[in-house]
């Protein structure tokens, strides 16, 4: 046998020898999706699921492939089956979120992200996705809180910090000065009283400074 370094050769041979090998099937389908061969992935996964065992991980991949093909109904159907098998799988919940987000169902998308967060130790990416969805002026307080947690997990992430600053400023602007939440002001000053990062745009730096001054001039608020 000639020595091969191509993983696909081995993967295909493994599936030839044992077509019901779930891990190999998962890896192969994932490879097809990564290579944007979505239609092939759908065909392969449907064939596997129909001929062998129902499997949550493979259903999840099928949902992802359908999503890429913009077949939203099929994608939702597939992810629902996956969720019926593994309702606490972060990967499946994330796919469900992505589908909902893609079809513009913000409410449901958020719901799936909340389910992921409730499972504990959410990743920075999940928190950012969540914050991203909270784009309504009434949700700015919650958005700031979430970005604050994300930044505390990864303090070197400049983008999150910019978003956090932006969220604070939007909140301050959209609410009457006297009605501002004391906790929000404290959080803002904690982050920016002593230090304003140089990578902030000049406008942003200016704005942050203005609000610091404003709060210092109104100690009663603090």
């Amino acid at each position, binding site marked *: *046998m000639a*020595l091969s*370094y*191509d*993983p*696909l050769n*081995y*993967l295909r*041979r*493994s*599936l030839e*020898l*044992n077509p019901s*090998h779930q*891990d*190999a099937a998962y*890896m192969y389908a994932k490879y097809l999706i990564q290579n944007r061969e979505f239609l092939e992935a759908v065909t392969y996964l449907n064939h596997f699921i129909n001929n062998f065992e129902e499997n949550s991980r493979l259903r999840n991949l099928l949902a992802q492939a359908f999503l890429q093909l913009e077949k939203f109904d099929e994608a939702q159907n597939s992810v629902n089956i996956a969720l019926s098998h593994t309702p606490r799988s972060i990967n499946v919940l994330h796919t469900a979120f992505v589908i909902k987000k893609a079809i513009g169902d913000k409410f449901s998308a958020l719901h799936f992200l909340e389910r992921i967060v409730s499972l504990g130790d959410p990743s920075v990416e999940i928190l950012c996705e969540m914050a991203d969805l909270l784009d309504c002026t009434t949700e700015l307080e919650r958005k700031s809180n979430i970005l604050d947690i994300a930044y505390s997990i990864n303090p070197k992430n400049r983008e999150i910090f910019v978003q956090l600053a932006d969220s604070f400023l939007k909140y301050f602007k959209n609410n009457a000065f006297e009605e501002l939440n004391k906790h929000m002001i404290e959080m803002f000053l904690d982050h920016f009283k002593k230090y304003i990062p140089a990578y902030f745009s000049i406008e942003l730096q200016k704005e942050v400074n203005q609000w610091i001054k404003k709060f210092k001039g109104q100690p009663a608020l603090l």
Partner: protein
Amino acid sequence: MDKQIKKLLETAIELDPKLANAHFKLGVLHQSEENFDSAVSCFEQAVTLDSTYPEAECELAIELRRSGKLEEAREHFLNALELDPNSVKTYFNYALLLIELDDIEEAKNNFDKVAEIDQNFAPAYFQKAKLLTNPDDFEQAKKNYETAIDIDEDYLEAHYFLAKLLMGGKATNTDGSSANKKDLKGAKFHFSRVLLLDESCSKALYNLGRIHFEETDYRKTKSYLTKALKLQPNYSKAHYLYGKALDLGGEHQKAVHHYKKSIDCFSDNPKALFHLGKLQFLNKSLKDAEENLRLSIQLDPTNPKSHYYLAKILSHDDDPSLAKKHFYKALELDPDFANAYFDLAFHSEKSGDLNEAKIQFQKATDVDQNFAEAYFNLARLSSSPAEYELAERNFETALEIKVDYDECHYFFGKLLAKGERMSKDGTLIIEPQLERANEQFKAAIRINPDNFKSHFQLGLLLFKQKEFEAAFASLQQAIQINPEFAEGHYQLAVLLMDERAQKALSKKKKTARSHKTAKAS
């Protein structure tokens, strides 16, 4: 001549019917002509006419014994002895009668009396020796046979029975403990003497075969038994022993033939039925084997091995209790039957009763402390984290006993690589012992380089240890040995999709490519 004498005696009786001596002599003549009824009437006439005639009393007693009138015979022997207390013939024949009357001790006394009167009367020593069957009397029996032979060196029966005594060798020491005084060389000598005296003595040939069988000289065993069977083709015991010699020599088909012949010649033959059944089991003729083993058990329910092999056959049945019953019976008959515990454990494992299986493997190790396979299987079944220490200890014991036990190294390696054990407070601790596992897999490969599973597990382990090149080589080896091994191909794909592995293997890949190019050019 005899006819003339007979005529003269009959004339004498006609002339004087009260002539007791004539009646006696005529009786002796009838006796020699095997005309026993007439002999009895003559002897009766003689003793009626002369109540002090010991020879007539003795001969009458002998004839009455011959015709089965034992009590009457005893009466006339006693009359004869009263009239002549020194008659060797009377004592000897009376002793023979006493054997028939099951009065062995009195018979011995009478043989002693014979020897006392006539020290050269060989049959008395021989017959007495035959009565000394208790192990306590071994030496005395031997001495009596030897005396008989000293007196008459061509005494065939004495040679034969002395040889049998020496072959058995069951004796006791002076303190009452049992002793083995087996003397196969002596036995061979005396059986050979029997054959010199009577070359058609099939029993001597058979027994010589038995001695050589005990000495594991199967070639000579077969040679003697062939001769015995030529003389007596329906000799069941000889067929049985021939079968065993062939069986042990690996000639199973021929052995089956002889076991069957042995059973044909003597159907109530549990030993031959057992060995036949066992061979049929080994040859996978399970139906025939079951039938013969059941027959063997019917005839001799106390052979644990018959139950054991029957249980092994029944373990293929859907109902696990059938086999269990016979395994238990075998163990009841022989509580030290390690293989029965071992196979019962496998049977229990097969029927899903893992706890029972573990108990039986444990018992097998209790009975036979060098039973490596039992330790190994006990360890294999103790795979839960709570039993980690037990499994580790048993794997180690198995490997101490049997160093070259590749399967054991392999499973031990898997246990160490997994490293899941339960702490005293019940928390699960995962501490894979990768270096030790590595050693075990390598040992398994060293012993059996063709075991693809060991290569595979070593590959996975090396992957974990980030030794990507070595992992790749091991997994490659696994699929080269078994190209149909799907999991091996899959894990190679997983390895090659790993970024760190790709980096590590890129050098090798380049070298391989340049080799290919060089070859092509």
